[in-house]
């Protein structure tokens, strides 16, 4: 009944009704997407406000700066993970990539102490792209399920890191001041590291929203078969997603080195779980097709703020992980229930509207 504009359907009123329904569905989908991010924002405000009321000293610039520095790297990794999860895939190897890239960039500085900062960052990015390409090959060409492929490369990259580093360590003394200033320096009071992260996050967000490849990630995650039939080169797009995720992890490794100064073979071990957790808390659906960079970043912020709030509130740090875990389960459950109630409402609207 879609194309009968000249002779309206006797029972359903023809095309105008169809269009209205489409618009309604769209409006609902938009409200839903917005409400997820709004909810996260409200949660964030409540945590900050609540902690600030209990301990006024929480609301100072130093804490704000700490949150920004801590969250900058995790939020970048979460953005990369978001692209992968959107396609119904997962990248468990990011922690190992961060580790090997951080040590590699550090070694570069040991060998060439006067390396320009931009070259060091590019080197980190390049190492990450190589790691991401390996994942991309395994998943897109070798047809290895991404959970298996990236679990394997998590082991292999980390093992290679240990074999290479052999108990060694790189210290902040090997790094030029210009490089350390990436983390310690500020522009108008905002840490440079946070500015880099924000710029990249905005870029990635625009890429996902406005560009064809960005929309294709959503299409693949919503329905891989339909995406293929719609003419999307699914393999190429999936491969690209893994390369981007790897590249971000590589860059994050270089930034990690600037932030912490000391790196060894165990750097960033296990951070992949924190990253997946941030994405999930940020309403990126593990079943693919749903999620935004803004949501993922808010998810990372919520987790980062909680961990600092716990310190300020003198809660034993041993509670942090348990609270994070409970939050992840609650976030997934709330998200799914919300999505289902909206879907039900839309069905009712369709049937009775």
């Amino acid at each position, binding site marked *: 009944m879609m194309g009968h504009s000249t002779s309206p359907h006797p029972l359903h009123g023809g095309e105008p009704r169809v269009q209205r329904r489409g618009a309604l569905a769209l409006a609902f989908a938009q409200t839903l997407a917005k409400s997820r991010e709004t909810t996260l924002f409200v949660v964030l405000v409540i945590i900050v406000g609540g902690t600030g009321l209990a301990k006024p000293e929480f609301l100072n610039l130093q804490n704000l700066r700490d949150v920004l520095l801590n969250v900058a790297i995790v939020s970048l990794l979460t953005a990369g993970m978001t692209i992968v999860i959107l396609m119904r895939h997962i990248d468990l190897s990011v922690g190992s990539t961060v580790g090997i890239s951080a040590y590699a960039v550090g070694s570069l500085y040991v060998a060439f102490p006067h390396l320009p900062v931009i070259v060091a960052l590019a080197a980190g990015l390049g190492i990450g792209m190589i790691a991401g390409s390996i994942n991309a090959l395994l998943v897109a060409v070798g047809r290895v*399920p991404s959970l298996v492929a990236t679990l394997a490369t998590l082991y292999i990259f980390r093992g290679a890191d240990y074999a290479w580093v052999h108990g060694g360590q790189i210290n902040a003394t090997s790094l030029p001041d210009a490089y350390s200033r990436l983390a310690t320096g500020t522009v108008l009071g905002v840490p440079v590291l946070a500015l880099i992260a924000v710029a990249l996050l905005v870029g990635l967000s625009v890429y996902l929203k406005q560009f064809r490849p960005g929309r294709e990630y959503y299409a693949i995650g919503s329905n891989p078969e339909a995406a293929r039939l719609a003419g999307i080169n699914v393999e190429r797009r999936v491969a690209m997603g893994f390369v981007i995720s790897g590249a971000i992890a590589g860059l994050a490794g270089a930034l990690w080195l600037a932030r912490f100064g000391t790196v060894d073979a165990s750097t960033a071990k296990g951070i992949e779980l924190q990253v997946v957790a941030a994405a999930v808390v940020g309403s990126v659906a593990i079943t693919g097709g749903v999620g935004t960079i803004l949501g993922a970043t808010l998810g990372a912020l919520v987790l980062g703020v909680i961990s600092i709030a716990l310190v300020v509130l003198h809660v034993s740090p041993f509670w942090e992980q348990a609270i994070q875990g409970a939050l992840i389960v609650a976030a997934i459950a709330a998200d799914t229930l919300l999505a289902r109630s909206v879907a039900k409402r839309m069905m009712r609207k369709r049937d009775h509207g």
Partner: protein
Amino acid sequence: MVKPASKPDSALLTRRAGLPLDWETLLVVILALSLGAGRLLSDVFLTGENLANVLADLTEVALMALPMTLIIVAAEIDLSVASVLGASSALLGVLWHMGVPMPLAMALVMVAGALAGLFNGLVIVKLNLPSLAVTIGTLALFRGLAYVLLGDRAVADFPPAYTAFGMNTLGSTFIPLPFLIVAACAVAFTLLLQATAFGRSLYAIGANSTAAAFSGIDVAKIKLRLFVLSGAMSALAGIVYTLRFTSARGDNGEGFELSVIAAVLFGGVSIFGGRGSMYGVLLSLLIVGILKNALTLADVSSETLTIVTGALLLASVLIPNLAARWRTLREKRALARAAN
């Protein structure tokens, strides 16, 4: 070629790949090769004492891999197993310090583990959520509870009668006592998966859970039982780990979930569910244990060894995939030639 009708499940993977033997047979060959490699790498490899080490070291991973096999066959996953192990270990320490007698403490820990599994199962089944996401959450939650229970303290003053069980071997043989538990559980789980209606229903659920539900299988109830079983077995692993190392700590067994999943997948169980056998997983556990032991004897550090685990994991999926592709390519070429 493989006889198509006689062994449909185990042969499918390799038949599709065009390999002239099924995955389990291939694993037996690899097992023999790794035993030979171990003998070549070190003179002490084949001594009773060292073989005891091999068996003892795979205790906890094996105890958790058994229920994990059932779960993955049913197309679900449980990433929280190692965290349940840690929380169980911590709980055992706390209960013992509170003066609870060991048998009661161990029973309580098993119940707590089953409850942890029940929590996973209820969230997954009742809210119909993906198990990957839920158990990533409970991985953090249960590990967090382990730290809440014990902090960074350790409890090490368990009664010697119990810790001796963790360290001694059976009579004058080289078989470690904890391995008896593994062997008994392995037999029970093999029977459960390969010889009962429950086991067959897992394959049906994993292959197509909607179809399984329509054919009268209570999918929700079975999945719930699987997660309870996984929780209880992880608690058992936590108890054994604590006794073997005479140490209850919150961070016990951290990261073991990856080794468990790697062992199950290398055993030929499909991550998409519906395919695989317990025999394959048992062989895979032995192979991984032997290779790790042999390479450790050859002075390879345990951290570097993770490369081997990763490579085995990749090979188990990549080789059949590439072989299948190569075969279709050859068939296409043959068809083209025939057409000419």
